[in-house]
């Protein structure tokens, strides 16, 4: 009947892990804003932020202070409780995804055996934040942004799940650690090589799920003023941006874990270049994640935005058949490997 002995110790260790992960990820999210402004500036032949600190390195801190001291406006037409709750929903469900992601073979906050499904579930729940923010603002632009995001995320979750089904079938497990281990043991070393179709589908869906360009229709600034964040100001707007950047990191981590072998390197690469083995595993994962974050920013600087009917027809007419094709191909490959 008594509480088990190691319970308090386990809780303490878990809290410590949460603090470490949260600290690192929040710092990264803050500096991704800086990196984005710098890189887009360089691509458009500008300098980007230069004023605060050397090369503008203290710009995120200045931004944070500015957002915290701004007045927090709640419109008269708004549903107050939902209006105040919606940004928190976005942030909470983005952060919760981090708890099941392993950063090292022996370091993850929760070792769940349904890791991929948990991430899909929380990504689906995070949509409510955006839709409710659009509804509760009591403004036409916000409502249109919320409706667009509902339709977009509902139709892009299907190819996302279908392309992940190929990965799960290949690894025979939902656990992210097992998925990485199965890639390291396989002939190709990475999941990208046998299922390049699935990877392309997943990458496009990751852009759409995080509301990034070229699929940032919910906050298209040329048609709707700022979409669902039109009425938000001060730190509530900051929370929305933080949630968006954290979900970008989650998607980048998921891509590099499911398709690029996570912290392992393919065998053919290590036999070709033996000195590459000394790189510690976490650094490999971090380099892959940085590459995908750079890809997110790069695409934002170069691609124009899609129209809404184009967005829908891409999902239903192109991505879903491609994902199904990829799934059939993986099933065939698995059958050949087993017999």
């Amino acid at each position, binding site marked *: 009947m008594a509480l088990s002995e190691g319970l308090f110790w386990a809780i303490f260790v878990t809290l410590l892990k949460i603090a470490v992960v949260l600290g690192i990820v929040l710092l990264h999210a803050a500096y991704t804003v800086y990196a984005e402004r710098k890189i887009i500036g360089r691509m458009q032949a500008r300098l980007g932020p230069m004023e605060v600190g050397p090369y503008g390195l203290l710009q995120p801190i200045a931004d944070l202070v500015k957002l915290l001291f701004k007045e927090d406006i709640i419109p008269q037409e708004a549903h107050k409780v939902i209006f105040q709750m919606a940004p928190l929903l976005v942030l909470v469900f983005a952060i919760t995804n981090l708890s099941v992601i392993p950063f090292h073979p022996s370091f993850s906050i929760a070792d769940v055996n349904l890791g991929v499904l948990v991430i899909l579930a929380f990504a689906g729940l995070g949509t*409510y934040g955006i839709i409710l923010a659009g509804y509760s603002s009591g403004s036409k632009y916000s409502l249109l942004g919320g409706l667009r995001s509902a339709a977009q995320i509902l139709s892009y979750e299907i190819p996302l799940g279908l392309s992940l089904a190929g990965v799960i079938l290949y690894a025979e497990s939902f656990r992210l650690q097992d998925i990485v281990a199965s890639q390291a043991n396989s002939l190709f070393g990475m999941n990208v090589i046998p299922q390049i179709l699935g990877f392309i589908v997943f990458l496009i869906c990751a852009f759409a799920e995080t509301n990034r360009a070229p699929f940032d229709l919910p906050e298209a600034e040329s048609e709707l003023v700022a979409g669902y964040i039109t009425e938000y100001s001060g730190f509530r707007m900051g929370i929305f941006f933080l949630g968006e950047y954290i979900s970008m990191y989650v998607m980048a981590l998921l891509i590099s874990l499911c398709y690029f072998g996570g912290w392992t390197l393919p065998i053919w690469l290590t036999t070709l270049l033996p000195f590459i083995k000394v790189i510690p595993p976490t650094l490999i994962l971090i380099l892959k994640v940085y590459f995908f974050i750079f890809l997110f920013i790069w695409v934002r600087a170069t691609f124009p935005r899609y129209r809404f009917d184009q967005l829908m027809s891409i999902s239903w007419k192109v991505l879903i058949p491609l994902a199904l094709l990829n799934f059939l191909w993986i099933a065939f490959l698995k059958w050949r490997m087993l017999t």
Partner: protein
Amino acid sequence: MIERAIALLILTGLFFIFTLLAFFFRHLVYQFLCILVLMVLQGVLYLYLNAEFLGAIQVIVYAGAVLIMFLFTLFLFPEEELKHLKIDLKNLKYSSFLPVALFIFLLLSVLVKGIPESYQPRNIYFDLKEISNLLFNEYWLAIFLLAFILSFPMVALYVFFKREEKSGSS
């Protein structure tokens, strides 16, 4: 066992609170939000019944897709239709409380008699391999029937919107 009892106590309390809120809210969106919380909590409840996969499916399919669809539909209606949904007590008869009374009586009778030993759970581990074995070996007919039934909504939608287009253009 004590952790399980405390967790289930908290969950039951939350269910009671949100059920009452869902019953007495007048605004349909607020009512919907309470029901959403109930559905997510039910996914948590499945974890205590050794059905992790069902819990994840509950959150993905119900909370993630079906209820978002409902919220989307709610926004298509004007605000006045959703605002004041009154409880209509005119036509309510006293006999309609009979099932509730019967249910409460049954629960109380179980409490008075006490839980028999045979009701303790037999430890069954329900993993995905077991599901897929059962699904594809014993229930294959059910799966094919399901796929057949699920193609109906797609066809219905297609026919409906084709007819809509025709009547709109003519």
